[in-house]
């Protein structure tokens, strides 16, 4: 790791701390740090800290999954939801709402939906012991569209109340309803990110080609399976409690590749920090712009992410 890259990571870390400090003081009521530490304001402090943790987990989990999938699929436009987790979780959630399962179990059903969909996508794409990259992208898209059609059908058949629940899924929400769920998700996401980081060198090799990786001593098929499993677990657990949050998994890895380069041993920590910053900021906007109304987080990430993405894309074209 060169000195300039170490400095960039340190810089991101400092920004992250600054963002956290800013985000806990902002909300429907703005409080200073000393006010927050007062005894009567403790509940607000805890609530905001939980929310910041949720935002960081969602950002880092999605963006690092994005990095891993982009390397494995050798396509920098791959999204963490490409294996069908979002539509699977959505279908699970809507079925749960329609059947009338208690909302406490909603994340569990959504998680099951996401995992089952990923298994379906994966088995559709695999031939024998191998999984083709192209067929995986294709089956992911096809199944997502098919499930979305079922979701639309179910929503159009049911009452308004279910529709409202559905919006929550489509555009994401970082509200922490159950602190225990937050800790379970934190456990899965942090473990997953660490596991992906351990595989950083393998990701470098795989991103230049599957056969190239084999010739560097990496068991490509096994590594791919492990990575699909980890990213599916991360995105499924996140989508089951915060719904679909688009663009983070696409835009942050892209920006970080421009900042620190494509070497995954640096790219993963940088993406982890930057996506946490990005999500905490987006969440702060969503809570404060129209306070006390809250804008769904996915709206903010899309409104910031889409133009940013177009700028980056244009810039890249100009270089070529």
């Amino acid at each position, binding site marked *: 790791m060169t000195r300039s890259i170490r400095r960039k990571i340190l810089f991101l870390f400092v920004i992250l701390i600054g963002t956290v400090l800013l985000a806990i003081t902002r909300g429907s009521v703005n409080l200073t740090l000393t006010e927050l530490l007062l005894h009567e304001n403790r509940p607000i402090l805890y609530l905001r800290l939980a929310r910041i943790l949720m935002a960081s987990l969602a950002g880092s989990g999605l963006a690092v999954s994005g990095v891993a999938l982009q390397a494995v699929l050798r396509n920098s436009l791959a999204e963490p939801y490409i294996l069908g987790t979002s539509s699977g979780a959505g279908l699970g959630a809507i079925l749960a709402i329609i059947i009338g399962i208690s909302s406490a179990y909603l994340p569990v059903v959504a998680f099951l939906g996401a995992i089952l969909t990923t298994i379906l996508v994966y088995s559709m794409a695999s031939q024998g012991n191998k999984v083709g990259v192209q067929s995986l992208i294709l089956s992911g898209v096809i199944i997502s569209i098919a499930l979305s059609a079922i979701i639309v059908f179910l929503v159009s058949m049911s009452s308004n109340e279910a529709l409202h629940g559905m919006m929550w899924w489509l555009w994401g929400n970082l509200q922490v309803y159950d602190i225990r769920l937050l800790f379970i998700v934190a456990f899965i996401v942090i473990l997953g990110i660490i596991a992906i980081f351990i595989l950083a060198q393998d990701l*470098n090799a795989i*991103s230049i*080609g599957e*056969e190239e990786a084999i010739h*560097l001593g990496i068991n490509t098929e096994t590594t791919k399976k492990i990575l699909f499993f980890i990213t599916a677990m991360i995105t499924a657990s996140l989508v089951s409690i915060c719904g679909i949050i688009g663009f983070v998994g696409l835009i942050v890895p892209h920006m970080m590749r421009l900042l620190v380069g494509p070497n995954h041993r640096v790219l993963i920590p940088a993406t982890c920090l930057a996506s946490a910053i990005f999500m905490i900021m987006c969440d702060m906007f969503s809570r404060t712009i129209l306070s006390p109304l809250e804008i769904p987080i996915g709206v903010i990430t899309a409104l910031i992410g889409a133009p940013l993405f177009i700028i980056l894309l244009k810039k890249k074209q100009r270089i070529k």
Partner: protein
Amino acid sequence: MQTLIDVNSLSGGYDKNLVIKDLSFEVKKGEFLGIIGPNGSGKSTLLKLMSRALVPRSGTIALEGKDIKSMDLKEFCRKTAFVPQDTVINFSFSVEEIVLMGRIPHLRRMQFETKKDFSIAHNALSLTDTLYIKDKEISELSAGERQRVVIAKALAQEPMLLFLDEPTSHLDIGHQAQILDLLKKMNREKDLTIVMVMHDLNLASEYCSRIILLDHGAIFKNDSPEEVLTYQNIETVYKTVVVVKKNPVSFKPYVILVSGERSGCPQE
């Protein structure tokens, strides 16, 4: 000479399609072996089987007497390296980063490269004359430069055996000679054994110490260039009329194509 690779009744291919059928041959230490044959004769498949990119259907391949199937993949990749025809890299790695990846088989998980790894990589860069572009992005390079970088990565693996699959087929005549001369030099000076699939019969003749001519997944001829590159062999396997002369400089066989209308034989 010591036997480095021993291929024994090897068969393999893709799904139901058996491409390589019951092949047996040896590669001696320090050899420069060329594999030639028409399209679809199984050259690349054979190389994939030998380099563990493909699992054989039956038969064995032994490296220094050890079955490669039971060898740890990283250990295998410390002894052998592979250079493909062309490498398309979608991500903006620098040349130095790509060549350092050649050290992966020598590193433990989570271990960063040491000074020694950097000096080996730099050595490989200067051998392939790519040290001056080490900070450039791989996607900015010309095909010739990129192929030299990929060879540098393979050399950074410090292999005793190098597999190459038509490494010069996308390059102009100058770059072809440059790369093949480099390989010849590594072969002579560093005792690097080379197994190379080649399309160009004359380049194979010029550089290889031995040639295997494949036909429909089987060995048609396995001998010195003079014995393999005769007009009879080539006409039988490639179904093309040729004249074989001696190269006036190297005295190696030189294959000249005779176009259809001049050969006097009606084309099938």
